[in-house]
């Protein structure tokens, strides 16, 4: 192609040249290499995606690449037969990149965990939302706030908090920890609606167990289940559970009322007052109940330790302030805080997408290589959809299921940490509207490469 205008011609020439093309390719290489290093550093593919692969730098270089490739192809106009292999290769790359963009923009790539013998129709997506509900009577909740938040890319700080207005008050998000190791702790609360907390020990010759129970709200029972026995913090509400029970009902700032029941007996075995340090023998398996700590007003809070990289034990968390109170909210967990007459339920959560049909997991199996613990295959027996559109299938690695435009793949599984029993199967659920563009691009490019190599034999090469 040729242009009359000298400057346009010069710019066009530059656009088709390797002076532009090679720096673009090198920048892409450097960018994505950085991406892999980031992924290794944080052990987190999401970090690399957010910081590099879906960043403006990536979009810019990819845009320039498309521009360069397009100009190079257009520049050959009018095309002759010997141009076609060249055009195929470059047009194929354009299509591949565009297909990738369509996938990223309009596709779905989430995961769904289904318990064995359970069902689920919500896919967990990577986007995160902040949602706040409020209640005045403790039963009915109204959604006060919902917004997509990207704390990974734009972490809030005490100086630059993320502010959420709730009527007269406001909640500020002041910190974001991408990789947090978590533990629970009980802290004293000043709120009138806060519940109580006890720390106790159950012991006999064989057992010595220390546990904490914290009520989520005043007068709302909190429980700890030991199998044949149960400890409840709250008002006495004895239903015949076929197990031994002890109720601890907060009385005042120092005392709790204990009520011990024996199984199969509707009448209390004994009852009385106890203070910190007191011991009551329960009469079950010679177990003694010792009250180690009692906080009349307390809430449970997360304790957050910042770590450098993602591990299976870390989660991301945000810290919020409301007035003088500070709280941590862990990703996909609930935080409940109390106002004077109202209570708020806050979540920082991954977006959940309703598939429109349930996935029911009938069975999940792991087969192993002979005589070893090494897994050979993972198989999930599922039924998807309902009624007449229901479809049963076995999903295993490399054998996905296609249903309603979605493809469901075996991705992972969960097992009980102690018993190692299989608990749930995790699928990745995928909808990819850019797929056909990428396949078309691959086809055209591959065709072009073969043609190009065939053609090169016939003409003088750079050899």
């Amino acid at each position, binding site marked *: 192609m040729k242009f009359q205008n000298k400057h346009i011609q010069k710019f066009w020439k530059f656009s088709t040249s390797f002076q532009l093309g090679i720096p673009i390719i090198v920048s892409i290489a450097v960018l994505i290499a950085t991406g892999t290093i980031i992924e290794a550093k944080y052990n987190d593919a999401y970090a690399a995606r957010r910081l590099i692969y879906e960043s403006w730098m990536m979009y810019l270089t990819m845009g320039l690449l498309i521009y360069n490739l397009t100009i190079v192809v257009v520049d050959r106009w009018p095309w002759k037969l010997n141009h076609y292999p060249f055009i195929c290769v470059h047009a194929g790359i354009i299509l591949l990149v565009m297909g990738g963009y369509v996938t990223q923009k309009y596709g779905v790539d989430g995961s769904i965990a289904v318990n064995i013998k359970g069902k689920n129709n919500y896919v967990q997506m990577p986007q995160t939302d902040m949602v706040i509900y409020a209640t005045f009577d403790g039963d009915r909740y109204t959604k006060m706030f919902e917004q997509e938040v990207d704390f990974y890319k734009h972490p809030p700080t005490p100086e630059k908090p993320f502010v959420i207005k709730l009527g007269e008050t406001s909640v500020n998000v002041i910190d974001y920890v991408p990789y947090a190791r978590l533990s629970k702790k009980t802290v004293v609360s000043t709120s009138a609606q806060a519940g109580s907390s006890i720390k106790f020990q159950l012991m006999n010759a064989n057992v010595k167990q220390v546990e904490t129970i914290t009520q989520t709200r005043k007068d709302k029972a909190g429980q700890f289940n030991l199998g044949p026995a149960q400890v409840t913090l709250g008002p006495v509400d004895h239903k015949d559970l076929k197990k031994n029970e002890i109720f601890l009902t907060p009385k005042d700032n120092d005392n709790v009322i204990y009520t011990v029941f024996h199984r199969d007996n509707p009448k209390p075995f004994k009852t009385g007052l106890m203070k910190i340090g007191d011991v009551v023998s329960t009469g079950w398996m010679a177990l003694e109940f010792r009250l180690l700590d009692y906080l009349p007003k307390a809430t449970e809070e997360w304790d957050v330790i910042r770590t450098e990289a993602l591990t299976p034990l870390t989660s991301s968390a945000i810290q919020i302030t409301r007035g003088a109170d500070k709280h941590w909210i862990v990703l996909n967990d609930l935080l409940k805080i109390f106002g004077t007459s109202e209570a708020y339920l806050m979540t920082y959560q991954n977006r959940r997408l309703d598939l429109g049909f349930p996935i029911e997991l009938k069975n999940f199996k792991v087969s192993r290589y002979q005589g070893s613990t090494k897994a*050979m295959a993972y198989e999930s027996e599922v039924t998807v959809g309902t009624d007449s559109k229901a479809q049963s299938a076995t999903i295993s690695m*490399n054998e996905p299921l296609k249903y309603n435009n979605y493809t469901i793949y075996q991705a992972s599984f969960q097992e009980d940490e102690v018993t190692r029993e299989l608990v749930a199967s995790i699928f990745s659920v995928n909808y990819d509207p850019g797929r056909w563009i990428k396949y078309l691009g691959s086809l055209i490019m591959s065709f072009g490469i073969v043609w190009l190599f065939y053609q090169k034999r016939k003409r003088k090469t750079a050899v």
Partner: protein
Amino acid sequence: MMATLKNKIFTSVILALMAFSFSSLGLAKAGDRIRYMPIQDSGRIKPFDTFAQETLEIIYGKKTYKPEEGAQPIDAHWVVMTWMLSPESWANRPLFEVKYHDVLDKLGLSKEKKYFTGEELFRNEKFANVMQELTNKRETKEKLTPYFQALQRLENQFFIFREIASGRMLHVMPRKDSPDVKPEDKDKWIAVADLPIDIQPAFMEISKNVAQYLGAVTDKANVEEAGKKLDDSVLAFQKLAGEAAPEKYTYTEKVKTEVLYNDIHPFRWAYIFYLMAALSLLFIWIRRLEKGMAIVWTFMALGFLVHTLGFVFRVYLAERPPVSNMYETVIWVSWGAVLFSIILELNYRFRLLLLGGSLVGLFALIVADSAPAILDPSIQPLEAVLRSNYWLIVHVMTITISYAAFMLAFGLGDLGLIYSVLGEEKHKETIQKLTTGVYRAIQIGVAFLTPGIILGGIWADYSWGRFWGWDPKETWALIVLLGYIVVLHARLVGWLKNFGMLAAGVVTFSLVIMAWYGVNFVLGAGLHTYGFSAGGVEYVSVFVLLHIVFVAYAYFVQKSQSSKLN
């Protein structure tokens, strides 16, 4: 004076090695049957020979045991057998390799030594501390650093030390199907320690005969007869063991082939032949002889044949394409590099192309052979993700074969740079030929890598629903492709002259090393890193750095040469 039976066994073992060190080429002789006994281990059935070699490799780092400097090595199967029969006789032998200095520090052991006794390591009061440290680290579920990987090996050594001695590690007999057997134990073979009462005497017989045989070897008396007796007892045991569940005891042929594979050691022969090919070719080249290429071709063909044979062995034994770990890909890539050099040589008749091919093949095979702790040569069952899908063959083999072409370009580039340093004007023609080789090899590489990456995308789309997921392994394969595409385009428009092309062949290969080795061993992230791999980083970095320095040196020499000419 107080020479116990155990000590006797040990001395006899030392002497036995002399007899057995000759047993190289599968000439089955008396006393050898025990090596063919099928064992269930790590999810497959293997001969006792392989089991013993792999076990010794984990604890000692080598396939044979050398009691002291200059002494003849003892075969792994005698080490493992006598260790099970009389663990005490091994308790004070330095049998455990510990190389990591921080670990030795923690245990308070000398860093001068490389091998330690079980007493020194496991009766050490600090041993429990370091094991606790490892447990704590594991609980954090963080990635293990090299120090903790070294501790992990120590733990593994301890486990093997204990389990071999107790007879719980050697699974020798399939389980009969019966309602009493728990379903998860159905396919588990029975260990020596748990053999049914009626079978036990048959194994005792083997133990007795092993002792007698090794004694006979020491005394150099009735060796043949004792060997025969041992063989008979092994056969008698196998007959009994097989009767319990004959359908699960059908590995005789495979096991035989595997022992043969262990004995032949095909890849070692392959590099010996490549070495001879390279040396004879160098001689012919330097002397500028017209004749003699027939010899080179013969060596090259022999090497390639044995190389292929070794590959076929592994395909047969593992029942899958052997490209699932670093060791196997090094073997496969060097095979490809040799193949491409042969094809290019047949096309161009430059001779030098063959030299490049034999040198890289030789180098890669020696590396594969000399670092078993890093490049694990044992045959392992496939990870679940990789299984039952022909995409593995198609995608992994195409991508790695492109690395073969790039490796050839790298070797040829190195040769070309050497000539360039020796005098660019003087060796103009040779340099031109090598440049052609580099260019062609890179073209071949790109022609395989591009479809390889696309096939990888199609496989990933099929199994995970992601055509492209920015996984580090696939990303680095793309970086390699981009790198070589830049080289090809730069050549096409004349930015790279001959020297530039040779240098590019060498420098760009660093990207291949990163994609191939670095992602698994340095980055250790993503979907493609199955299990732990570590080690060798310092050697590989030095290798890459030396080449970059060499290219820079060649560049300055070439610069000064051309300025003198002007």
